[in-house]
Structures are given as structure tokens and as C-alpha cells.
């Protein structure tokens, strides 16, 4: 989607709806595929899947251009896709291949594409907040209207960097949006246990900035709230905390049996509450997309993901010369 379309309008046009639906499908199918392949033992390392939370990344990134920055988390695949990272390159990265977005050196937890404004998945909880501030400072110093979004989990909001960053964004009126993906858990600990606050967005009041709490599986709610936040940021009105209540379909990492969730909760989430299902219904009801269009997207995406997998498997592993390359620019 052209940059100007994204930037100039908060309207849910047909074109935007199609882009949104495609991105959501890409994320879902990408993650489902990774889940299956990981189970077969073909993917190395730790993998944290984003399936279930698509509406957040997509609803927010629908307002961003390549010049806008995002910071991400250990659960970063969804943010990458929504921000426009190449899917072949992402999959190959997760497979540890030389053709990966990071030449296989980063892996799932470190996929990045700075040229797309995607400043990296991050293995360190809480690391993304200050990084978003830096992108906001660049915008401020250079007097552009670029914004920065920090995606983070409910668990991460207990890390001190959350507050350090919000405060800096607030005092300097930086164009930063703090998007909380509150999936109710940080690993095996519930939000209710680990966080004293009722809502993560409640902190906005103390910092005298705007805070919103929305249903994070309602694409439209996220899209609209994010649109308002991005507009305020571009106008120089400072940061926003946007909390999106959502659900992760899989375990914390691949291999987690989720004994801390009940069966009922798990089943319910995968049915009527599902973000993609709900957006399909919305798009159909509002005549933004037809059943055929939806099906075509599904099929196109399937082909895309299949391609990414084949591409990855066919790709070579990085060779020895790469081991000590890229440690420094200069030598």
C-alpha cells in the first residue's frame, strides 16, 4: 500500500481492508506453519508465536509508512509482517539460512529490517521502550513527522524501562505510541498476579498523556484508536499508551503446554473471539470484501507461505566467512 494512503487517512477503505486482511492472514498462516515445522524439529532455538494477536500489529501498522519505526519483542513475527518485512527472508531467517533477513545470524528473536523501519525483534523484555524513544528523538531533531511505535507485552510493562521511556516521551512530547499487547500472561504468570494496575493504560493519567484500552481482537477498534494516536503524534501532541487486550493462541514458546490456562478458555478463544474471524465478518457485513476476495487472499497467502518454506529449505546455511563478519562496520 502506498505510503501516502496509509498516512493520510484513517478511513477503512476497501483497499485498506484488503491490505489488513492479507496481513492478518499472512501472520496467522506464517505462525501456524512455523508451529508445525518446529514440532517436526526442523527449526532451531526458541520460537514465540504471534498467532491470535494479529489485530494489534496490523491495526497499528496500517497507519505507518516505511519511515516510521517500530520496536518489537521476542514475539516479533507479527510485527515484522505487518511492517512489511519480506516473508521469504523472515522464514529463511527462522530456519537459520544465509538468505534470511539477517543472513541467519539473528533468528526468530532478532528479525529486523531497518530499511522498513522495523528495528528488530528483541530477546530482552523491556528493551524496546527506550529504542522507540530514540526513533522519536530522531524525528524531533530532524523535524520530520515520523512516528515510532513500541509494541510490548503486559509482562514487559512491569519492567522499569517502560516508565523511563514513557516519562521521556511525555516530557519531550515525542511521537511515540506505546502499544501494549495484553494477552493476560507473561510466560506462566497472569497479568492479574504480576501487575498491580487494573489496566496498563491507567498509567497515562499520572503521566498526563492519553491512554486508551481497547478490545485487541477487534481489528477496527485497534485501527481506530491507533489512528487517533498516530495522528496526535504526527501533529506533535506527544505519546499515547494504547492497551489492546488480546490472546495468544499458542504457548509462551513452542513446547509450552500451557497448564496455566484452562481448556475452556483456550477453546473459546479459538472460536468466536478470534480476531481474524471477527474481521472477516466485519468486512463482509460492511461490504468491504466479498467471500471470494477473502478466499482468494487465503489462497494467495497459502502460496506465499509455501513458497517461503520451500525457499528456506532450499537455501544454504551461512558459511564460515560469516562468523566474524558484521561485528563492526569498520573492521
Amino acid at each position, binding site marked *: 500500500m502506498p505510503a501516502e494512503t496509509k498516512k493520510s487517512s484513517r478511513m477503512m477503505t476497501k483497499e485498506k481492508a484488503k491490505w489488513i486482511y492479507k496481513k492478518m492472514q499472512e501472520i496467522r498462516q506464517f505462525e501456524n506453519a512455523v508451529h508445525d515445522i518446529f514440532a517436526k524439529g526442523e527449526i*532451531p532455538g526458541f520460537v514465540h508465536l504471534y498467532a491470535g494477536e494479529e489485530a494489534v500489529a496490523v491495526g497499528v501498522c496500517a497507519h505507518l509508512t516505511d519511515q516510521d519505526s517500530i520496536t518489537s519483542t521476542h514475539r516479533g513475527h507479527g510485527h515484522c509482517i505487518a511492517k512489511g518485512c519480506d516473508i521469504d527472508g523472515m522464514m529463511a531467517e527462522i530456519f537459520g539460512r544465509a538468505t534470511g533477513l539477517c543472513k541467519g545470524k539473528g*533468528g526468530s528473536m*532478532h528479525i529486523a529490517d531497518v530499511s522498513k523501519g522495523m528495528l528488530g525483534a528483541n530477546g530482552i523484555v523491556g528493551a524496546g521502550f527506550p529504542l522507540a524513544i530514540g526513533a522519536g528523538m530522531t524525528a524531533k531533531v530532524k523535524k520530520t513527522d515520523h512516528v515510532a511505535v513500541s509494541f510490548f507485552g503486559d509482562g514487559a510493562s512491569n519492567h522499569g524501562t517502560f516508565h523511563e521511556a514513557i516519562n521521556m516521551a511525555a516530557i519531550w512530547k515525542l511521537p511515540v505510541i506505546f502499544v501494549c499487547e495484553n494477552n493476560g500472561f507473561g510466560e506462566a504468570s497472569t497479568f492479574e*498476579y504480576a501487575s498491580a494496575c487494573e489496566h496498563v493504560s491507567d498509567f497515562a493519567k499520572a503521566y498526563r498523556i492519553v491512554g486508551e484500552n481497547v478490545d485487541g481482537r477487534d481489528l477496527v477498534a485497534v485501527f481506530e484508536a491507533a489512528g487517533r494516536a498516530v495522528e496526535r503524534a504526527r501533529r506533535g501532541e506527544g505519546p499515547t499508551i494504547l492497551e489492546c487486550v488480546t490472546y495468544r493462541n499458542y504457548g509462551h514458546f513452542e513446547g509450552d503446554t500451557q497448564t496455566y490456562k484452562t481448556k475452556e478458555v483456550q477453546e473459546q478463544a479459538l472460536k468466536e473471539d478470534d480476531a481474524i474471524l471477527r474481521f472477516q465478518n466485519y468486512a463482509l457485513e460492511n461490504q468491504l470484501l466479498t467471500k471470494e476476495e477473502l478466499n482468494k487472499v487465503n489462497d494467495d497467502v497459502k502460496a506465499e507461505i509455501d513458497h517461503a518454506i520451500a525457499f528456506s529449505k532450499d537455501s544454504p546455511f*551461512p558459511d564460515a566467512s560469516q*562468523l*566474524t563478519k558484521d561485528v563492526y562496520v569498520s573492521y
Partner: protein
Amino acid sequence: MTKKMSYSDAINDAIRLAMHKDENVVLIGEDVAGGAEVDHLQDKGAWGGVFGVTKGMVEEFGRNRVFDTPIAEAGYMGAAVSAAATGLRPISELMFNDFIGSCLDEVMNQAAKFRYMFGGKARVPLTIRTIDGAGFNAAAQHSQSLYALFTHIPGLKVAVPSTPYDMKGLLLSAIFDDDPVIVFEDKTLYGKKGEVDEGFYTIPLGKAEIKRIGKDLTIIGIGKQVHTALKAADRLAEKGFEAEVIDPRTLSPLDEETMIHSVKKTGRLIIVDEAYPRCSAATDIAAIVGEKAFDYLDTPIKRVTAPHSPVPFSPSLEKLYLPSPEKIIEAFSEMVGEKVFTAV
């Protein structure tokens, strides 16, 4: 009585014994139990740590002694420091040693310095358990071996156990030591099994162990690299060279004597350390032994370490990144001036 158990079970065993022995011993960390306040998990944990190492502690000791913390390393580590200073004997888990960036102050400027700054009028009986090591394809932020950073800091003690037996004994020493001790658990060793004494025993902090006797070469391995050293020694033996393999077991304090004694005998030293090569445990030991066994060294001390580079994700690169028996043999070949093995 001994029993075969895994490195991970040895840790679990040590913690359980310690918590039985002293009610001031408490566990603190992220999901060390898991599932706090989840209805069906009140009296049991969901995880027992990210690798299940502390499984069963909640069942046995209850949630008033097993604290699942928020993701706030500075917060809970600092809390552990002063809990120690005010009467508890906490075991605080830093899930991966790579996360020390979030709580170095609590370890370096508080735990390590309280006693000295306060003129000897405080004690900080804190144990930090943390996971290190590459070889798990966990990439640059979850694969580091950062024990050198801690060894640098006076006031801390640093243990790097390589076997289940050593782990249990060193961890129990750490827990009942009145100074702050950090114990490194190599994630790739969790499944490794070995004979472990049942019941309570300790291994003194500051006592190396000779894991293999030899006369032609000394190999010092740090943490899991003891095993790489032992493999290399086996292969050297096939060619008629007997390597002595030493496990320092703790880096601070460091048992200089055992190492120097060995080198005086063998005249040759290779240090195997998977950590970064600069200002490392490897250079540290090389400097110390190089000074004190100077007249006995036939050849320069060699270090087989990681390159000066972050840990790569891809399995193909991570394999090249780590020390290997081949690299040790290669170093030895250089020392003795002949190709003992054709490089594999």
C-alpha cells in the same frame, strides 16, 4: 550412597535440601514456580523455571518461600540483596545470564560492595543462579557466557560447575556461604547425567579438581568446556599424549595452586573457554599461570575460545563459534610443532 541424576536434578536436589535445612532459604525469580494465583495451581507450580529446574518447590515449601516475580530484574534482584542483608538466605534466579544488563547495579554496586562499604558490618548471603552457554541456537541475547564480568568484580564469588556432582556440592556451598555467590548453569548440560552423593554435601568454593591426570599437557576447561577438554584428551591419548584436565570449578576465588602445580609438571597449558576472548577467564588464567609458572612453560599458553563476536543464531555458525576437541588438538599441534592429528 550415590545416585545417577541429571545436572538439572542435582540443582533441584540441592535447593530442596537447602530449603529443608534452613527456613530462611527462599527462592525468587520469574516463574520459578509459575502460575501464581491461578486457581488450579495455587499449591503447585506451572513451570518450575523456564527449564523446569525448580519444579516441586512450591508443592513442598509453599508460595511464602517461592516467589514468582514480575519481569523486573532490578527490582527483584535488589530485593534479594537486602532480603539477604536483613535475615533471609535467598536464591535469586536470573533466568539467563544475558539479562544481567537489567540488574547489574544490584549485583555489582550493592551485593558485592555492601560489606566493604559498611566496614564489615553487613553480610549478604545471596545466591544467584543463572543460565549461560551457547550451543542451543538461542542466538546473541540468550547464549552468552558472562562469568568474566562477575569475576572482575571484587566481593562476588563465581562458580561454574561442569558436572551434576559438582553442581550439587557447589550450589549448596553457595547457598550457605555468607557472601554473594553467582552460580552458572550451562543450559546444554541440564540433561547430562552423573553420579551424585545423596544427602547433604558441599564442595568448597575455591578448590579446583583434576578431572584427568596427565603429564604432557595441562588443559583447563571452564564450565561445560571441561567436557570438550576431556574429549580432546581422549583423542590425544590415542596418539600417546597424556593431557591433564583441570576444572577450576570456581573462578572467584580461583585455585591458582592446582593449576600452577599441574603446569609445572606438564610445561604446557591450553585454556578452553567458550566465552568472549578479551578480558576473559581465559586471559585471566593465562596471565596468572603465565606469571607464576613462567620458568616451567615450554611453549606459550594457548587459549581456545569463542571469536570476538556475538553468538550467531544459525546452527552452522554456532558450531564454528564454539571450542571443539579439534581446535584443542590443533592448538596442541602448534605447541609441539607437528601435526599430531590431521585437522578434522
